[in-house]
């Protein structure tokens, strides 16, 4: 102990003006009071999170048994990333069934959104520049967990996106899908197509908590590949698992002039500005959703490789690079 401190301590003791043991007493008391307040507060906040998903279930609540998932609980962020990931909340969320569409004008908008989503070629023809439909990358009418379901996206907007360096409303986000994924024209804000898609998404999200990351959002991130993704290996994966539907040349399969299976590259596919051209997105989608009916059957390495193969082909240019 430094000399000056011992001197001061002794001096204080003898003058009795201020007994230094008070310092210890004050510190100890503070710690005791803090723990009395903090521990129950932490417990309560955990309990609050547990309660959220229960409230999020729709009135019918008939899905929990079908997915066979454990009851709602807090999930830690899946992967350590550069930024701290927000809490992911596991919800056995069941969007309302399409047979329970609301009636009236709002119901009509939802129905149009449902139609656009499943048959974009017909219902939003004016804004589509390729052969795809929304449902090609958002399986089960935009309802399937781990296939970028609309109900997990809707409550996460408005949000800042690095892609366009601004805060995007959900409507702006949808417009981006048309520009890049559909290689088309952006429907004007407030157009009946965007209103319909927003109505459909809103309706699917009924009862879902807002502003929290729901389990099943987007595509489940893969761990970094053990070997760098490889086009030659990917080609073999493609031929063995994908070509039967998507075609040996990746151009999908057409029936009566329409794509029954979507083209993965070339003029009728998504353009080079689409998120699916980022290999981690493509690999994550493929692993969780392809081949149809056989999710998670490819190894992660195979998913990385086949994604690399898919994105090694040419496709329509990124519209941001085209001077108007």
């Amino acid at each position, binding site marked *: 102990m430094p000399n000056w401190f011992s001197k001061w301590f002794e001096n204080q003791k003898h003058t009795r003006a201020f007994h230094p043991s008070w310092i210890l007493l004050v510190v100890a008391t503070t710690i005791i009071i803090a723990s009395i307040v903090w521990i129950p507060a932490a417990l309560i906040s955990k309990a609050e999170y547990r309660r959220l998903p229960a409230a999020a279930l729709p009135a019918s609540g008939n*899905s929990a048994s*079908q*997915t066979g998932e454990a009851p709602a609980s807090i999930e830690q962020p899946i992967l350590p990333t550069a930024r701290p990931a927000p809490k992911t909340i596991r919800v056995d969320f069941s969007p309302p069934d*399409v047979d329970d*569409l609301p009636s009236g004008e709002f119901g009509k908008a939802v*129905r149009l959104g*449902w*139609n656009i989503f499943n048959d974009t070629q017909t219902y939003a023809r004016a804004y589509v520049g390729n052969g795809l439909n929304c449902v090609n990358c958002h*399986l*089960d*009418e935009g*309802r*399937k967990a781990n296939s970028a379901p609309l109900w997990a996206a809707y409550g996460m907007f408005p949000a800042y996106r690095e892609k366009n360096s601004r805060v995007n409303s959900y409507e702006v986000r949808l417009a981006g899908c048309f520009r890049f994924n559909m290689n088309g024209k952006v429907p004007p804000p407030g157009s009946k197509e965007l209103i319909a898609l927003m109505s459909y998404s809103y309706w699917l999200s009924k009862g879902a908590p807002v502003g929290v990351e729901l389990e099943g959002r987007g595509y489940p991130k893969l761990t970094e590949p053990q070997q760098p993704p490889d086009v030659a290996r990917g080609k073999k994966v493609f031929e*063995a*698992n994908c070509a*039967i*539907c998507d075609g040996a040349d990746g151009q999908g*399969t057409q*029936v*009566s002039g*329409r794509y*029954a*299976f979507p083209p993965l590259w070339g003029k009728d596919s998504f353009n080079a500005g689409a998120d699916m051209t980022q290999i981690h997105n493509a690999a994550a989608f493929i692993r969780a959703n392809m*081949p*149809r*009916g*056989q*999710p998670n059957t490819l190894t992660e390495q195979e998913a990385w490789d086949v994604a690399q193969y898919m994105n090694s082909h040419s496709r329509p240019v990124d519209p941001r690079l085209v001077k108007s």
Partner: protein
Amino acid sequence: MGPGAAHADRLADAAHAQQGGPGTTACVACHGACGEGQAAAGFPRLAGQPKAYLLKQLQAFSSGTRKNPQMEPIARALSAQQRGDVADYHASLPGWKADAKAAASSPQSLLGSSFATRGNWNKEIPACFACHGPDGAGIPPHFPALTGQPSAYTRAQLKAWQAGTRSNDPQGLMKAVADRITDAEIDAISLYLEHPSFSGRRE
């Protein structure tokens, strides 16, 4: 080869299918004069199925990846040329057309319709029509038409995949799906596909 020669070929195929060639039984005895199948006996409709699909089935009966006491000996007796001929002939016949017998909207029919058009993704079951084409009319060359097939036939096939007595599906795609379907769902799906109703479509 001119159209005349093609026509002559077609006639030869038809003759083979209808009269039976050396060592074969006539296809028509079970599959009907127009390849329309026999609903009561569960013999499938062949008319309009993709040629590659029909050929593959004959090969599967012959190699044992598709078990069937009637078809196995017949397929083994056919030469490669004869298999090609009968497949060609049936592929050239007109496929199934929607009839007026569409089932009523019973709960069972709605269940079948739901599986056919939307699937059940909670069990990772895609819609039948997602791979078998719009209105289940098939996507050549690999995916056969389902609509208009006798329900007894469809039911037997789904159960054959479950049991492993039919294992000639590419990449095990049908096996994976069939294993997740219950008996009640198989009944509903099979009945719906025999007389599907497309009028309830949401527009």
